[in-house]
């Protein structure tokens, strides 16, 4: 579903990501673990098409998003449920309205959007908050609402940056449950955390863990994980570059505009 190919990013002249290659297939959950400043958030921003790399390419459902016109990027983003470390919500709107907004952008009908939004809130055990205004919520509750918005649908790709930061054990379990549920529903899930307890929980539920250290995937000099791109997942470090075809599910991706296909 998402394939980051040798991506590099700089911030204020410092290299934040250095030639990272990473792929996440449908029904796969990858948790990126790393310390603060290791480049996790930048990596996830690239995956969510919220930022473009300085070098390399990001393929989403067979389209190279780095070569798409700026006007086409929204059609990529609406297929990605992105939960940032600092949840970006509308403070004056209700919880339900915030979750519905993502589904409205994807073109769901109002009735269907409301139903899916309620299901997503139920998934993160936040149903009782649906009529609350976001500005009245605690930081932890806002994270859960942002996560519900990210998994509502669910979209083809869920990207969650520090989804359990500052929440308790119970909320951590809810986050794990929501992300694995999205994965089980067919989404590709990419999560990043510095919280090893959350990473352990996600791995114990079938997630794959990779470590990001100073902008590089630990143990992978140039190429990261691409487990679902081949019939049999390859062990870390044994991946041999070859001609591959990304699995493309146009029906799931929705109204993405025509663009250059991925490697074939």
């Amino acid at each position, binding site marked *: 579903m998402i394939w980051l190919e040798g991506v590099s990013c700089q911030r204020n002249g410092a290299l934040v990501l250095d030639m990272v290659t990473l792929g996440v297939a449908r029904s796969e959950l990858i948790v990126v673990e790393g310390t603060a400043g290791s480049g996790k958030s930048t990596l996830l921003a690239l995956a969510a098409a919220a*930022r*473009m790399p300085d070098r390399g390419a990001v393929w989403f459902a067979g389209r190279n998003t780095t070569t798409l016109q700026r006007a086409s*990027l929204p059609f990529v983003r609406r297929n*990605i449920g992105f939960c940032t470390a600092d949840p970006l919500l509308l403070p004056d709107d209700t919880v339900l309205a915030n979750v519905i907004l993502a589904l409205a952008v994807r073109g769901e009908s*109002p009735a269907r959007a409301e139903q899916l939004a309620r299901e997503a809130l139920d998934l993160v055990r936040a149903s009782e908050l649906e009529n609350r205004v976001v500005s009245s919520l605690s930081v932890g509750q806002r994270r859960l609402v942002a996560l519900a918005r990210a998994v509502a649908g669910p979209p083809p790709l869920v990207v969650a940056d520090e989804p359990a930061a500052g929440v308790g054990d119970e909320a951590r379990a809810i986050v794990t449950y929501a992300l694995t549920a999205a994965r089980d529903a067919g989404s590709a899930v990419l999560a990043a955390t510095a919280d090893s307890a959350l990473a352990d929980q996600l791995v114990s539920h079938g997630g794959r863990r990779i470590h990001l250290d100073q902008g590089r995937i630990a143990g992978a000099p140039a190429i990261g994980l691409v487990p679902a791109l081949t019939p049999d997942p390859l062990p870390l470090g044994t991946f041999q570059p070859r001609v591959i075809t990304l699995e493309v599910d146009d029906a799931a991706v929705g109204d993405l505009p025509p663009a250059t296909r991925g490697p074939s």
Partner: protein
Amino acid sequence: MKIVWLARHVRGQAHAHRWLVLAAFAAFALVAMVVGGARLGARTMARWGAFVGQNVHVIVYLDDGVDQARARDFAELLRRVPTVAQVSIVEPDAALARLSTSAAALGVDGKTLDGLESAYFPRSLELSLTPAADLSERASDLAKRLRPVPGVVQVDAMGSGLARLAVWVKLGRRLGVGVLAALALVTVGLLIAVFLRSRGAGARRAAVLVQLGETDAGIRLPASLWMATAAAAGAAVGGLTLALSWQPLIGRLERTLGITANAPFPSLDRAEVSAGMAMVLLVGLAMGYFATPLPRIHDGA
């Protein structure tokens, strides 16, 4: 964006920013009143100017024995006087008609004039003098010279009264321009405040929608629509208020000042109203559009 969502977003945003909607409504109502008022004011001034500019500085009332032919000869003689610009003969019928019109304009009961006949009015000559700084003195001087002329019953030098009225009209024009300028300043200030507040309120929503994958047009359209709707509604109410209040207000003012202008009452025609509404809609759409700042995505070096 689907129409149903667009309608919901417009309604939702208008509800969320209802004070801004009200401010935009008030601002555009003021815009309509200031712009419309300026146009109507200019036309009212022209109407009053026409009244003042009838330029009748001296009226010569002729004896009953002076017939039309002698009156024409007399007028021809007066036209040759260097300071006289124009001479017109007012027949008794025309004089009675003017009196009736003036009386009606001043609200005098029509029955008061019922008994009057045109024969009661003398034939008269209305003299306009060439423009000069000492107009009233020249009018008085000419009147003094005309009084002993045979066939002249009475001579009225009106220069001083008209000069006074002209001064009042000029003062009224200056006051009107001042009031309009002050209102225009308030309006512009209100519009800028509405724009900046809308921009602040729209920034976070735009950031959220960009993250969710909304297109630029989809992000900006709801704000454009609610702003344009508020602008059109405000302008319509402002224009209607002006249309309903202008004529009675000016009519009362004219009665107070004793102005009996013959030109029709000024009003805004359909083309002007349509052009104004179209302009207001465009400005509203543009204000909403530019009041929604889009966050820039970092697209690499």
